[in-house]
């Protein structure tokens, strides 16, 4: 126990020394660009601190440790307040106040848009939600939940029916044979462009059968056996292709993010690359 404590203190000491060195060095670099001392000290600190936080998160890959815990807890506090402030200024002051109170509009210096009695609905529902904190009349908060859920249900029902369901179904109406020009031409061109009829035709078949079997897989009220079982098996295979392909396709984006962070460390902080 005593040994591990010594080691962690040693690491802490090293981190503090490195932090200080980086702070001083970065201050120097900023000053060289003609920045006043005060600002250089500030920005030197900010860059160093951001780098420290970056490395603290990465250290999680090795194992959980106090630096990760520090970064995690700081992140939670700062981010919770961030969204509260943004919500307050953009929604509450931006959208709500101008519709209910001229005095408050003037106080927050936002243009008053005329009194709208309907805006008392969210106000009342919002207050009802806060009543949750009282155990006696906490049940009234369910009214606002009911309002939210009703809104969600109403909007989603139509939206999904219209955009996802009807559009996707009609997109499945595809020609069985694309642009027929005789057998010779059909089998001789196996390319993936407008001239490759075989591939285009095959794509349409794959899409049609794939969607068909995929939907069969999602049948809940029928046992998956016989023809149904076979089709749902094909369905799950099609889904597996989808999942494998999506996964492989995503790797690139994830690596980009790491590139971004390493660029910050190598360029903005250490100045190794330009």
């Amino acid at each position, binding site marked *: 126990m005593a040994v591990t404590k010594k080691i962690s203190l040693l690491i802490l000491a090293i981190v503090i020394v490195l932090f200080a060195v980086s702070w001083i060095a970065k201050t120097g670099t900023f000053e060289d660009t003609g920045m006043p001392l005060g600002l250089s000290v500030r920005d030197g600190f900010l860059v160093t601190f951001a780098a420290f936080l970056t490395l603290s998160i990465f250290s999680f890959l090795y194992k959980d440790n106090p630096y990760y815990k520090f970064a995690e807890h700081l992140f939670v506090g*700062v981010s*919770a307040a961030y969204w509260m*402030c943004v919500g307050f200024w953009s929604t509450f002051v931006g959208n709500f106040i101008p519709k209910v109170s001229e005095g408050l509009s003037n106080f927050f210096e936002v243009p008053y848009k005329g009194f709208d009695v309907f805006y008392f609905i969210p106000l009342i529902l919002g207050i009802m939600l806060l009543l949750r904190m009282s155990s006696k009349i906490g049940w009234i908060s369910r009214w606002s939940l009911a309002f939210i859920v009703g*809104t969600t*249900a109403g*909007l989603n029902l139509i939206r999904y029916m219209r955009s996802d369901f009807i559009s996707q179904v009609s997109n499945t109406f595809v020609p069985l044979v694309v642009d027929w020009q005789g057998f010779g031409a059909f089998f001789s061109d196996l390319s993936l462009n407008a001239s490759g009829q075989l591939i285009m035709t095959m794509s349409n078949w794959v899409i049609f059968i794939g969607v068909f079997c995929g939907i069969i897989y999602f049948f809940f009220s029928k046992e998956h056996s016989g023809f149904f079982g076979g089709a749902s098996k094909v369905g799950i295979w099609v889904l597996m292709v989808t999942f494998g392909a999506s996964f492989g396709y995503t790797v690139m984006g994830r690596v980009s993010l790491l590139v971004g962070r390493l660029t910050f460390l190598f360029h903005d902080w250490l100045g190794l690359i330009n």
Partner: protein
Amino acid sequence: MKRKIPVLITFVVGSVLILSVFFPPIETWGEDFSIFFDIIAVFAFFLGGGNLLRIHTKKAIKRQKDWGFSIVTVLGFIIMLIAGLFKVWNDGGIAGDVAAPGSLFQMMYNWIFTPLGATMYALLAFFVASASYRAFRAKNVGATILLVASFIILLGRTPLGTYVTGWIPKSLSIFNIPDLAIWIMTAPNLAGQRAIMIGIALGVVSMSLRLILGVERTYLGVDNE
């Protein structure tokens, strides 16, 4: 009473919004209700922030495990909140943009929030590698299909695919890895996506209907009525 009124509210609000789509005179109600939801959400921030503060101050006061870190959370929260609500060092005063350049709020956003978020996100690069190592194994037909599809796509996303299969004549270009990768993305992948999408659309419609009709109401909890 405590349960019937909420169910009634859901029914009325849901039905009205469905109808509003079809009737031009009230078609903007959907917009208005969306704005209402955002406003209610702001009130809920108080619940959230209160809960966060309560849990972490309690932890700190009771000196529970890792209590020191709870202080970090509370301090971070309070400082950011003050910076944002009072627009500290914001040249624009009360009417200025909350994230105006030079303000404390923007500084903390740029140098704490952003690097932390971006780094957490960047961890994914490591996790896709460990997940593919662990999970892409030819254990059965389904797993093998998963493995092969992702391998072809991975190849297609690099110039390596072109080097390996670049010699294939144009008329057989489907066997060219980058083209094959696109084909997988646009045909079988699309089919799978579409099947899931249609299923989800039906699921959402059905679930919404259950909510509006009041047959699904776990979200209300129960009470001792």
